[in-house]
């Protein structure tokens, strides 16, 4: 082993400008690096200092060889030194060929030990300069050293770099590392990088065909670009590459659809949250609450106020402000709803069209009130750390805030179902929905149930506001932008059936998002609205109509 690097390092007779010879030497060198690092003990001793001292030269060829040799030396600081050389912060003292590097603070450090070298005047040192040949040697060395770095993230990044550069010189290093790579992710990246490097090399066709197949399996856009941009290959490889591009395109199209469906579910969950409270009030009381959107807005502003209060008084709790905002928003909106019911809506029962107008007036008043208090501009509500960012799942980008909103909407839906089915209040509510007068005769206080129902529906709208504050601008117009969609959901799903609301919200969300790439966002929305208008002509009572005589009135 030592003998082999000896051959590579101490053979000045090999013509350094001969390309093939240089390539071979670099391959041998990188191989040796890997083996050398695997057993660094073998390279200990005087050789180490010698390898660093060899850098102290102004001859570029010598320097390049010294770089390659340094990589083989097993010097623990080799990567740092080579990077310093690349960055131009490596200096040497001509007298004793000692090498130093300048750290970020401008202090001189001994390259061999990494310790601050006291009393070394920068003026006595000469910086090491590099040319293209040295730079290539540096890059190869850094690549090879990174590929065998103990940190898997560094190895992964190095593999990605090779994938992009398609440098055939990296193949031996990759092979060596692949032989002992244990991390599956890094392994995959290295296999793809090796395949890319094979395509960039002068290897035989069967190796290249295998490489094309492997890259096609990787299936992302980078792989597609690589295959599509392949030049100077034989007919068979070119055909395989074209087939690979087609396969990747199919896969990407599938992924896009999956991604659109995810966006659709995300939009659907937002619609569900906004509409579910409406479904409760409309379903039970036949009341069209045009101020429902403003209840959502109140919830969003409550979230904003809670967050601001915490920012000022309890910054350490900021990440959990939503935990406080959720119940508070529910209470604020529910209270507002109860007030509205007592002050306005109860006088208008049996006159749905007038209720619609009065609540619309209310929505204007609430909007203007919020505009007067908080100003007309958008308010910033931050995402807590556990809701920011995204991760990739099989090629589909999943953002945390959207995911949490889907989860939250499901919790709200099932929580509401529990209330309706398992509590005395829910029983009373369902009784009033089905037959108001009979329920009254059985001793249910229908006015109280109405009030509580309206409060419940509004409170759920407040919860929707908390969720919306995480993905949308909190502004006085927040509610308005959702009210028409919410009505569509309720009308589409049928009144008085939460499953209908769920199905309708998800259908609308997904159809909207699937139409968007085909027709554009605006046209898609128009198409959905028109489809809905046509649907209502066919089924005026929605997907899941409430059965019974009461609804006919």
């Amino acid at each position, binding site marked *: 082993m030592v003998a082999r690097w000896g051959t590579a390092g101490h053979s000045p007779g090999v013509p350094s400008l001969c390309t093939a010879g240089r390539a071979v030497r670099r391959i041998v060198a990188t191989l040796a690096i890997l083996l050398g690092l695997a057993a660094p003990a073998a390279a200990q001793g005087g050789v180490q200092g010698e390898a660093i001292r060899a850098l102290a030269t102004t001859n570029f060829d010598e320097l390049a060889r010294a770089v390659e040799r340094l990589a083989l030396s097993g010097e623990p600081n080799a990567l740092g030194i080579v990077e310093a050389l690349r960055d131009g912060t490596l200096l040497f003292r001509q007298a004793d060929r000692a090498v130093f590097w300048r750290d970020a603070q401008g202090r001189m450090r001994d390259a061999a030990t990494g310790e601050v070298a006291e009393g070394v005047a920068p003026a006595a040192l000469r910086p090491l300069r590099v040319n293209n040949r040295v730079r290539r040697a540096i890059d190869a060395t850094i690549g090879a050293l990174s590929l065998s770095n103990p940190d898997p993230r560094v190895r992964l990044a190095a593999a990605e770099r090779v994938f992009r550069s398609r440098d055939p010189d990296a193949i031996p290093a990759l092979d060596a590392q692949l032989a002992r790579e244990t991390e599956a992710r890094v392994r995959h990246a290295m296999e793809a990088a090796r395949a890319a490097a094979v395509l960039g090399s002068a290897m035989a066709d069967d190796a290249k065909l295998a490489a094309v197949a492997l890259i096609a399996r990787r299936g992302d856009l980078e792989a597609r670009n690589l295959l599509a941009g392949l030049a100077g290959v034989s007919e068979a490889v070119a055909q395989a590459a074209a087939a690979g591009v087609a396969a990747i395109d199919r896969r990407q199209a599938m992924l896009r659809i999956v991604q659109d469906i995810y966006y659709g579910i995300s939009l659907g969950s937002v619609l569900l949250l906004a509409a579910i409270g409406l479904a409760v009030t409309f379903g039970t009381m*036949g009341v*069209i609450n045009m101020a429902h959107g403003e209840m959502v807005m109140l919830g969003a502003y409550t979230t904003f106020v809670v967050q601001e209060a915490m920012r000022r008084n309890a910054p350490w709790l900021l990440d959990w402000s939503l935990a406080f905002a959720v119940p508070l928003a529910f209470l604020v909106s529910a209270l507002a709803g109860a007030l509205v019911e007592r002050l*306005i809506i109860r*006088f*208008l029962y049996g*006159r*749905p*069209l*007038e*209720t*619609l*107008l*009065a609540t*619309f*007036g*209310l*929505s*204007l*008043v*609430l*909007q*203007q*009130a919020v*505009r*007067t208090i908080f100003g007309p501009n958008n308010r910033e509500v931050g995402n807590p750390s556990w809701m920011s960012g995204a991760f990739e799942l099989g090629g589909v980008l999943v953002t945390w805030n959207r995911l949490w909103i889907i989860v939250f909407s499901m919790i709200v839906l099932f929580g509401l179902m529990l209330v309706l089915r398992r509590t005395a209040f829910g029983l009373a509510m369902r009784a009033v929905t089905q037959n108001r007068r009979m329920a009254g005769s059985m001793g249910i206080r229908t006015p109280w149930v109405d009030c509580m129902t309206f409060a419940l529906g509004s409170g759920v709208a407040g919860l929707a506001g908390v969720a919306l504050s995480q993905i949308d601008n909190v502004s006085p117009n927040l509610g308005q932008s959702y009210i*028409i969609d919410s*009505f*569509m959901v309720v*009308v589409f799903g049928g009144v008085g059936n939460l499953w209908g609301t769920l199905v309708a919200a998800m259908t609308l969300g997904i159809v909207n998002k699937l139409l968007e790439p085909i027709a554009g966002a*605006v*046209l898609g*929305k*128009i198409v959905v*609205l*028109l489809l*809905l*208008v*046509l649907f*209502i*002509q*066919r089924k*005026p009572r929605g997907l899941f109509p409430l059965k019974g005589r009461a609804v006919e009135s």
Partner: protein
Amino acid sequence: MRTALFSDRLVVAVAIIVALVTFAIGIGNLAFPPGSVLHVPTYVVSLSGKYLCYALLALGIDLVWGYGGILSLGHGVFFGLGGYAMGMHLMRLIGPRGVYGHAVLPDFMVFLNWKELPWYWYGFDSFAFAMLMAMLVPGLLAFGFGFLAFRARVSGVYLSIITQALTFATMLAFFRNDMGFGGNNGLTDFRELLGFSLRTDEMRVGLLWASGVAVLLGLAVCRLMVASRFGKVLLAVRDAEARVRFLGYRPESYKLVALVVSAVMAGIAGALYVPQVGIINPSEFAPMNSIEAVIWVAVGGRGTLAGAVVGAVAVNLLKTFFTTRLPEIWLFALGGLFILVTLLIPRGIVGGIVTAERRRAVGAAPIAGPA
């Protein structure tokens, strides 16, 4: 006929007031020089013309809502389409005097790099054709929409919500540049109509008088309709649709006729509105505008015809006052008006007067209540 037309004293009174005030404003503007005590400034002329267009729109809404029980939250779509028909005519009349100087294409099409006029712009250089379209397009839309909706027995709040969706969808569509209606800038920069510049006082007074005549005609048509046999059935449909059906009538036909007439009136109102305000853009289709128009009728008193005109003018006078003097109060006032009118005077101003009169004249036949 004669009795039907003049039997409602309130309608007659409102018609006379409209005629007199409209005439007086026009004369005051043209006959008296600026500085004279009797001079009426030009902006008052334009403003009054605008109010009259709103009054015509409100009349249409009153016909379907007050008499047919159909609460349309999308009448802005008919108003806007009528306005766009007129706007297209006015655009064609600009001719080569646009900023880009193209002989045929309006400026926005040149800007969008269009090479020729889309087919649906053909014919709009003719005034008669444009006016026909201003009535035909809203009428046909109302017919198609009403035919489907009434046949499926979509009624009540469901109908209100889908009319709202209709106008919302139209707004989104007209915001698109490739629709060929000027995108969100709409149509503007008009110059002349029927050979007269739009910027002269004479033209403004002419448009005001035209609007006044349109309102009078609208009142007459609506009055004749509701006083006829047709109107009686329509009222019955509003109050008990199922019973009317069981008596052998087809309620959907009656509602459809009322909706189409109402849409045509809205279309005419839109066509008269555009040259007076000088612009039409997709925000006319905003659901908010349609709902605002409904509240004019509610404030004035629905099912009275006179109330629609009174409400439209009264609310818009308030709006003009608030938006110029106290803009931040306007939404409070409008919202409060919605709530208070529905809670306290469900019959509106004119409805309240009628009820008070009836109470004094004991023994008079009970008038139809609200739906």
